[in-house]
């Protein structure tokens, strides 16, 4: 990433590595354009004790464009998270703002998990998953 915003990513990464908030840690960031962030289900929520991994992909448009964010490994069972790890969260798509950061995305996802009252997949999960094979969630909306 040789864009003017590579510096911003470096800074964000450093912040997260130096002083990560509770339940959020950088698992992998050898390539600046692909990070894996681990998050822990918050205490008191349905996901307490579970661990998940988020994959962030940044293209040259970041932060004017949202990063592509999906769960890898075993995604949480949640009405807004598809079986293939795609996340239905408006700030990742239409309501993205360049002033949002990796940290703010992680916090939003954690808060989304915490507010869940029933562990179910989205109703159209199987349809969506078969339609979205090999596609970025940004292209399937």
């Amino acid at each position: 990433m040789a864009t003017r915003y590579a510096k911003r990513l470096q800074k964000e990464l450093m912040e997260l590595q130096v002083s990560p908030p509770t339940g959020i840690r950088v698992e992998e960031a050898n390539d600046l354009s692909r990070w894996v962030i681990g998050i822990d289900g918050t205490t008191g929520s349905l996901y307490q004790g579970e661990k998940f991994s988020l994959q962030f992909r940044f293209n040259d448009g970041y932060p004017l464009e949202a990063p592509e964010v999906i769960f890898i490994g075993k995604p949480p069972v949640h009405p807004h998270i598809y079986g293939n790890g795609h996340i239905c969260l408006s700030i990742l798509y239409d309501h993205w703002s360049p002033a949002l950061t990796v940290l703010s995305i992680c916090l939003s996802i954690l808060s989304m998990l915490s507010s869940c009252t029933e562990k179910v997949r989205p109703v159209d999960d199987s349809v969506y998953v078969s339609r979205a094979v090999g596609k970025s969630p940004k292209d399937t909306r």
Partner: protein
Amino acid sequence: MSFYRERMSSGLDIKNEELYGGVGDGGVVGFHCFSCWNITSKMSEDEIYDDYDVDDDSAEESGNESADNEEMDYEYSTQEIDFDDIHSSNRSIGKLTRQKSFEVLDRSELVSESRKLIKEVMDVLSIPSEAAVSILLRHMKWNKEKLIERFMDNQDKLCSDAGIPNLRLDKAVDKSLQKFSCLICLEDFPPSQTFALSCDHRYCLACWKLYLECKIGEGPECIYSTCPAPKCKVKVHEDAFKKLIESVAYEKYSNFILKSYVDDNPQVKWCPAPGCVYSVRCDRKERKEAVTCKCGFQYCFNCNDSEIGDHMPCPCSQVDKWLQKASDESENVTWMLANTKKCPECRSPIEKNGGCMHMTCRKNAGGCGFEFCWLCRGPWSDHGSATGGYYNCNKYDKSKAKEDDEKANDAKTELEAYMFYYHRYESHKNAMKIADEQRRNAHQKEQQILSKFDVRSADTKFLMEATEQLLRNRRVLQYSYVYGYYLDKKSNERNLFEYLQEDLEKHTNQLSTYYELSLDKLDDYQAFIKWKEQVTNYTRITKKFLDHFVEGVAGGLTGSHHNN
């Protein structure tokens, strides 16, 4: 409608005396008698379309008076015609006719129009900021009245809905601020290199620039861009765009604003012709006559469709109904019409390659030489006065259709009637396409004439005029069959309508025949001159018939419309 009758009677006289005697045998015809036809040609446009104005005047008066007063065109229509007819009392001499026509606008005119509107609102609402009013107007779809009403009603709500909670659009830098860290690039800047809207979400100028240019790249919606802060609904105003981005990108942005001005404004529409950059303003909601764009395209402002174009004499609703019906039934009808044109004599398949309905089964292509009418497939000798017949091909003869099959039920008759009209509609549509092609090739033909007969280039002008006339005639004829289909089958109107349609169709076909004459048939200069006169005369004749037809139909045919 008074002058319609007047013309009808004079028209009949001329026909008997001159038209049939002179033109039919193809000689040089004296058209001196046509001077009396000037009754129509001297009429100014507003008189012809006067009937249209009647309904709409009231609507206009309640409309944008303040906006349009200085543009209003008052015309005293001077009556040049001496009507003895009692109906002439309907049109009083020197009557004040309010003529508001259409206007073709180019980019700069659109800019000044939208600026004018913004200025008006600024004055009325005492808002000093042009950029703020621009946002408000866009929020209200450029509807000035509605904006003023909403503003008076609840200023704060309107402004916050529109995305300018504070009419002071920008937030000045806090003097105490020493160093500022941009939340987008996470770098530090002196406060002078930052910018914030009224919401005080401050970012560096470079990030603003990239953000806004990125928005512009996303398309027309960029004019509703908000502050980059998450969930902030404050709109980025025009001056901010101007200040923050490059002029090339700003140009793009202003074009999107103009686009919204046109798209949101029911009185202004882009010309539908492919690739045309002009737009047309028309204040009259139900304008019936076509508008003509600067690109040359003539079309109905309401339909605003490059395919439909001008559909005189049909009203829009009829065209809608017809096209709907055509798409519903087209498979049926096209199947029945496809490949069914065989020579009525020898059954050889015939392909129609000219615009004229006069078909000849060519002997040199293995045919029998029989001449027939494409529409009714009857012998052509029945169609022209020169050969002792009369032209009758535009009327649907219901009794004859019944004779053919006495047991035919109503549904079938209806389908037959529909096919009759659909076929003629399509035939004229195709003939128009051919005429359009001929128009494109006219230049070539002109060159051939220039080299063959050694004439001046002014002597070939008639060709272009003839093609233009043919195009107009075919277009009107095409839609006249839509009108005819929906016209009450037994009314008096119908007789008159078909009478006028017949005149137009007959002479248009004759013009086509003359026009399409192969240059090889013209042996010398004399023959050329004769041919030229034939074409010129028929161009003029069909123009008269076209005018009569359109005005006749527009005027309500029997006059009942006007007298009501």
